[in-house]
């Protein structure tokens, strides 16, 4: 083991910032990160063991106890649940003889749930040893089970099990305009750097991650910093459930994304860029590395790019299962090999980002758009969209519709039009912007995709009239409790309390005051949390409570109070030990 780890750490140049990459390899080789492994890594990197333990315990894909040789995780996204994910995971559990959330005694398999894997257009989905599985069905599961029984290595499994399709259904400016290799860099160099920044300014491009900060302004702030060591970071930690457009962009438009990053490096004067790729997109890692390698050989990356005298290279860093790392300062912490805890602001990343140096963090789609603008100028882009939201938005559409997939629309397109295009009928409502966004009812379909109306990072989940609102509210609320980083009190404790309180009501134990208590709790979590995760964690409850107060009221029992503590459930262990199933072994909590 020592030799293996020594080699891994050496390949990572003994850099503590590469801790996640090192732990990924150790985890993958030994199926966990043992105490001994921790001691070895700590010594080689010259960091404290506690830093390593805290990183392992933070990220979902690192473990202090061994996982199975075949480690299967099934995506817990609402869209997967809508495609009968629950019965599939139970079937898998029976067929493999392993309880959900455990490792089988012989160590061959482990099975669990994981947050949305970004395959909502081809679910139910999952991961096996980190690699994406799509379109799961009983038949596919039978196939997987038989392959595991034969103990066939993953490399020899039929390729179609891992097949991922782009599902691009509607294109517009960005997905239609082809850019040849180096075209955006050449255009930037010949037009001039200041002029190219001006074109981006003219385009009024705003960040595509959801928050919508003006891109030209961000780049300009960074370029004006005194510190000359600067970084470009592409945020491909696409964790918002229901979003998968970055997966498609990095699969089929990676050249343009890298091109956009390189244009940014020219403008802000950066020598090093990072692509922070969510761990769930491991399947893209090798092909992205090849793309980078090819670009280096063409002189589009590395030293003296296209004889301009400018040096710039891009490194890919893989995440390890933490939604919070999509928050830019948490992402930077993660890039530095730490737990993904959002930083205090100010200072902002443009002044103190990676290694406390000026850093531009932008979404994959923002860089794609920047490459387009560098080639074609800002006007064409600005002519599309609305006054406050220029250009187009790439949506990831999933849920109850005929054609889930990728759709590019000019900003200002109405929900009604989108629903027609993707073949959605009998619609109850749409979750725009993922769990942290807004649920809109079928009374609001004239609303538009735009920063000034319905802002979205790209997630667009459709629910038809057969769906139960509580299923999605519960799924989203549990998601936030699971993904809270735990840094601040209101989010750490509040999201878990929200989950309990919501479950109490949904499961029919709520009394008159419980909906009010739920709403009060929502306000605390929303108003006092440290970062966007906590500030939006109550949105699923708040937006449905506002639109459908009656369905919450219907769940309420006609009693004035019921304790949150379930007396009868708490003596279940005692009942089992005494082998009692009779009525007298049950307690009635409240006299009916």
């Amino acid at each position, binding site marked *: 083991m020592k030799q293996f780890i020594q080699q891994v750490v050496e390949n990572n140049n003994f850099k503590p910032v590469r801790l996640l990459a090192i732990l990924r390899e150790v985890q993958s080789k030994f199926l966990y990160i043992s105490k001994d492994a921790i001691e070895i890594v700590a010594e080689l990197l010259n960091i*404290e*063991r*506690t830093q390593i*333990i805290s990183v392992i315990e933070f990220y979902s894909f690192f473990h202090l106890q061994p996982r199975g040789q075949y480690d299967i995780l099934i995506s817990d996204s609402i869209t997967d649940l809508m495609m009968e994910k629950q019965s599939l995971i139970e079937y898998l559990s029976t067929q493999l003889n392993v309880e959900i959330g455990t490792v089988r005694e012989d160590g061959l398999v482990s099975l669990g749930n994981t947050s949305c894997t970004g395959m909502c257009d081809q679910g139910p989905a999952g991961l096996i040893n980190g690699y994406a599985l799509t379109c799961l069905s009983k038949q596919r599961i039978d196939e997987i089970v038989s392959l595991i029984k034969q103990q066939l290595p993953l490399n020899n499994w039929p390729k179609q099990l891992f097949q991922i399709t782009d599902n691009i259904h509607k294109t517009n400016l960005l997905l239609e305009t082809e850019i040849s290799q180096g075209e955006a860099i050449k255009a930037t160099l010949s037009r001039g750097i200041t002029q190219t920044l001006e074109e981006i300014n003219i385009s009024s491009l705003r960040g595509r991650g959801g928050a919508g900060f003006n891109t030209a302004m961000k780049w300009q702030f960074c370029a004006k910093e005194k510190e000359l060591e600067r970084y470009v970071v592409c945020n491909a930690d696409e964790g918002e459930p229901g979003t998968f457009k970055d997966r498609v962009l990095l699969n089929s438009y990676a050249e343009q994304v890298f091109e956009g990053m390189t244009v940014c490096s020219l403008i802000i004067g950066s020598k090093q860029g990072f692509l922070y790729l969510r761990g769930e997109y491991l399947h893209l890692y090798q092909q992205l590395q090849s793309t980078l390698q090819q670009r280096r050989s063409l002189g589009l990356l590395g030293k003296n790019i296209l004889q301009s005298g400018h040096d710039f290279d891009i490194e890919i860093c893989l995440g390890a299962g933490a939604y919070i790392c999509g928050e830019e300062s948490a992402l930077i912490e993660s890039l530095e090999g730490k737990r993904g805890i959002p930083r205090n602001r100010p200072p902002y990343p443009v002044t103190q980002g990676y290694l406390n140096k000026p850093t531009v963090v932008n979404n994959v789609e923002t860089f794609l758009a920047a490459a387009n603008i560098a080639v074609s100028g800002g006007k064409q882009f600005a002519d599309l969209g609305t006054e406050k939201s220029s250009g187009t938005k790439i949506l990831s559409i999933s849920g109850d519709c005929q054609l889930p997939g990728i759709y590019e629309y000019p900003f200002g397109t109405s929900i009604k039009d989108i629903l027609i295009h993707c073949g959605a009928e009998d619609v109850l409502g749409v979750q725009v912007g993922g769990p942290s966004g807004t649920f809109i009812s079928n009374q609001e379909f004239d609303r538009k995709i735009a920063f000034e109306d319905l802002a979205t990072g790209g997630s667009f989940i459709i629910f038809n009239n057969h769906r139960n609102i509580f299923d999605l509210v519960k799924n989203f609320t549990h998601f936030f409790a699971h993904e809270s980083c735990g840094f*601040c009190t209101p989010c750490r404790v509040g999201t878990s309390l929200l989950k309990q309180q919501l479950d109490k009501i949904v499961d029919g134990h709520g009394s008159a005051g419980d909906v009010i208590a739920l709403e*009060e709790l929502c306000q605390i979590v929303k108003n006092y949390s440290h970062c966007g995760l906590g500030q939006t964690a109550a949105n699923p409850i708040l937006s449905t409570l506002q639109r459908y107060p009656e369905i919450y009221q219907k769940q309420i029992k006609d009693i004035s109070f019921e304790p949150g503590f379930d007396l009868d459930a708490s003596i279940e262990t005692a009942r089992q030990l005494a082998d009692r199933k009779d009525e007298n072994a049950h307690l009635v909590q409240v006299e009916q």
Partner: protein
Amino acid sequence: MSKKITIDGKEISFKDGQTIMEAATEAKVYIPHLCHNPAYEPHGSCKLCTVTVNGRSCTACTFPAADGQEIINSSKELADDRKSITQMLFVEGNHFCPSCEKTGNCQLQGIAYHLNMLDNHYPHFFSDREVDASHPDILIDHNRCIFCSLCVRASQETDAKDVFAISGRGINKHLIINSKTGKLKDSDININDCAAHICPTGAILIKRTGYTIPIGQRTYDEKQIDQVTLEKELNKNG
């Protein structure tokens, strides 16, 4: 002309680089806090010091003071919400004040009294936490840890050690000890370390000293936490 902020209508001068908390403390304005201690880099995690700055919620211990800020620190809404946040800390861990050696000297309890917290309001988590009594002089009762991270910072910044760290995610967050066994006895900690004495609650205690001062004559038995804190922190600054 010196720069000024106003807190609840009171005009306060500040120096460039000061946080709202620092400016307030100098002007003898108390903003409730647990994870902040002026001797250390501000952390901003407990969120008790949340104030309203020009209509926006900000964490006073980390947010820089800027000329003309209008700050609300005392309002019914803030008092109620700070109480809720304190209640969250109480239900998350296992805090039994009457049987805790720290009672009367505990800042969590002191804040709860100050905010007139009369019950826990939220359902308890009954979390399963351990006690580490392995060290001859120092005891850790994880039931009482509120993750203020002051012991982490004190050990790093004052003691030049690295005895503590925060691990886990979300509600599974916990304090870990830097030693091969994970036990305090095998760590570098010493009874004279700042980290051994900084805990605002009863999570880190010095053994055999719990009852040297009788209950009823302890810090917050005599004075409210706002008064005690201002006196202590003004002294440190002066």
